[in-house]
């Protein structure tokens, strides 16, 4: 049975705002936040990002929205990097690409604005500062941003305006105020009170649930594992290996008194930014924001000891390393080495975390379970098969929760069994596993369910759920885990195969 949908407080508050906004309209079914979020993005509303990123994790569009946000974010970061390197065309192209996917994190507005200030484009900078304040009027740095804006544009309306009203959803048509009897107002008051109490309870419940560590998120939300694996991979490769790793090389040389000015300059660029890259501490924070966005807001760095320790270590490295050449004291070297050791420990903890993510062995036990459960659904003899074979080679793992993989395979097998039941003999079904080596050295696991029915079956039919909910679920589950589904000609003796493919899971 499908679990009840969890809805975040912003959704409820938005729903509440809509209720209040429409005055005496009758109570509605809960507002779907996704169309509201899309409309805000289309309107270029600065709060679109918040609406996208707070979509409940179990909302049907939630995973896609987070994927698009993460995808757009790489373009936005690259755009900023290019802007810093004065590659305006490249920056424009990247930001344009980001905008094709999803809204920009307002946290980037002040960064871009400051780049514009540095280049004398005060008007654009003021516009972005203003946009930031409209999106996040109560952010911890809002006062500082207001000051920056005041320096550029003392008359900016945002400095005197009240915050924007809540983002509109479907605007009610203008109408004349009806003559409402007192009883209706009382009923409305009671209803609003109940709604407020309910929203408050949801808020408390949500506050209790939010702010968890990455490790806890891994335990509680297996559907996020593929996203977590990707994010952790990026963080480890781009930041910990490339930037911190390169900086450590210079630290070793500085420790031996062998560094040259050019090497020190290189170190500074790795730590403090430049050549189009964000400063290390800022880059780390950008990664953290990417985690928080992609993981639906439950991950909170303040609740995660290892992330907090890593951030502290990065601050130490950024503070102490650039001046190490001139102030080379044993105490500073010890602190730096300790900071690098802390980052090593952080890296190891991330590796262990990814190693422990969900994975399911695709072996004969799994396929036999699928066959047995499907066969048990029908009375013996109801569907006569000439053969139902299972062929598996070397066991291999995929990053899919076992329950979901069984669900996917059972639905495809059930469809195949029913199709051959309606077809003339011979009635044969076969489950086979094939592992393909890609040019990248990765492997793709293809699980094929082949049958002898010549009844037409296309991907469009599966996606459009022409065969009912079962195959539609297959499509959705395969998408969720970054897999693919295809229909291919069957091997010798079979008409067609439905093939589901997933990347092979490795230990990190």
């Amino acid at each position, binding site marked *: 049975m499908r679990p009840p949908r969890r809805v975040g407080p912003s959704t409820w508050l938005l729903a509440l705002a809509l209720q209040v906004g429409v005055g005496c309209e009758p109570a509605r079914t809960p507002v779907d936040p996704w169309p509201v979020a899309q409309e805000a993005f289309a309107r270029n509303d600065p709060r679109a990002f918040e609406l996208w990123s707070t979509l409940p994790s179990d909302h049907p569009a939630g995973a896609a929205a987070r994927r698009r946000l993460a995808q757009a974010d*790489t373009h936005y970061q*690259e755009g900023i990097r290019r802007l810093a390197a004065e590659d305006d065309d490249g920056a424009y*192209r990247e930001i344009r690409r980001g905008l094709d996917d999803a809204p920009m994190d307002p946290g980037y507005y002040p960064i871009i604005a400051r780049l514009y200030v540095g280049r004398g484009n005060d008007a654009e900078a003021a516009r972005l500062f203003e946009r930031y304040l409209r999106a996040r009027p109560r952010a911890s740095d809002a006062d500082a941003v207001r000051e920056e804006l005041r320096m550029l544009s003392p008359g900016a309306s945002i400095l005197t305006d009240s915050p924007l009203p809540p983002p509109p959803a479907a605007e009610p048509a203008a109408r004349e105020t009806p003559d409402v009897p007192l009883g209706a107002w009382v009923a409305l008051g009671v209803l609003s009170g109940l709604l407020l109490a309910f929203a408050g309870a949801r808020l408390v419940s949500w506050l209790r649930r939010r702010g968890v560590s990455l490790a806890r998120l891994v335990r509680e939300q297996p559907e996020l594992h593929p996203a977590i694996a990707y994010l952790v991979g990026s963080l480890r490769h781009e930041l910990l290996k490339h930037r911190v*790793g390169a900086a450590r090389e210079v630290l070793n040389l500085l420790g031996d008194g062998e560094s040259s000015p050019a090497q020190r300059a290189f170190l500074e660029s790795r730590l403090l930014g430049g050549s189009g890259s964000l400063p290390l501490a800022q880059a780390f924070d950008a990664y953290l924001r990417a985690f928080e966005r992609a993981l639906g807001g439950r991950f909170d760095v303040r609740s995660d000891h290892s992330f907090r320790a890593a951030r502290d270590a990065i601050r130490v490295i950024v503070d102490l390393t650039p001046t190490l050449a001139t102030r080379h004291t044993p105490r500073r070297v010890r602190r730096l080495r300790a900071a690098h050791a802390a980052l090593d420990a952080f890296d190891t903890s991330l590796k262990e975390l990814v190693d422990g993510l969900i994975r399911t062995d695709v072996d004969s036990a799994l396929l036999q379970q699928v066959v047995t459960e499907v066969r048990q659904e029908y009375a013996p003899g109801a569907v006569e098969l000439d053969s139902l074979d299972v062929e598996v080679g070397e066991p291999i793992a995929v990053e899919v929760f076992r329950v979901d993989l069984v669900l996917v395979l059972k639905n495809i097998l059930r469809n195949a069994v029913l199709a051959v039941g309606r077809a003339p003999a011979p009635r044969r079904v076969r489950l086979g596993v094939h592992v393909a080596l890609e040019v990248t*050295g990765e492997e793709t696991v293809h699980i094929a369910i082949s049958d002898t029915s010549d009844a037409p079956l296309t991907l469009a039919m599966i996606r459009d759920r022409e065969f009912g909910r079962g195959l539609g679920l297959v499509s959705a589950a395969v998408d969720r885990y970054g897999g693919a589904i295809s229909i291919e000609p069957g091997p010798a003796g079979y008409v067609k195969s439905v093939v589901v493919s997933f990347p092979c899971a490795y230990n990190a």
Partner: protein
Amino acid sequence: MSAARRRLLIVEDGHEYEEFVRLFLGERFEVRVAHAAAEATRLAREFQPDALLLDLRFERTPADALEGDADDLAQRRFGGDRARALRHLQDQQGTIVLAQLRAQQCHAPALFVHDFPARRLANLQQLYGAVHAIPAFDAKAMAQVLGA
């Protein structure tokens, strides 16, 4: 002294690898740099490198300059989602460039700065012969692997 320097071809989307090698291993290697597969295969022919140093992710390379068939990949592995296929090509571009170099008969040992899972590294070695990986920028390890 310079006669003893080994020829190193670096393939990356930025300049970080080049900067690092020039600063820390400059005396040991004569360096050429390529930023895309076509340039890499041309340089491999002209320069005849003794070793290859490859970036893995080419996040700064525009989609139309990436090596690999995004449409085919989208169909085979990503349910027709071209954006995901392009992202994957960016993420794995270094290995795809290596495939191109090997197809052009460039068999110099290749090094990635990446901690590949053991099975994946074995796959790369099965496909492309001498392939090495070190987990982080480390001049000493790099020199050792690249034979300098």
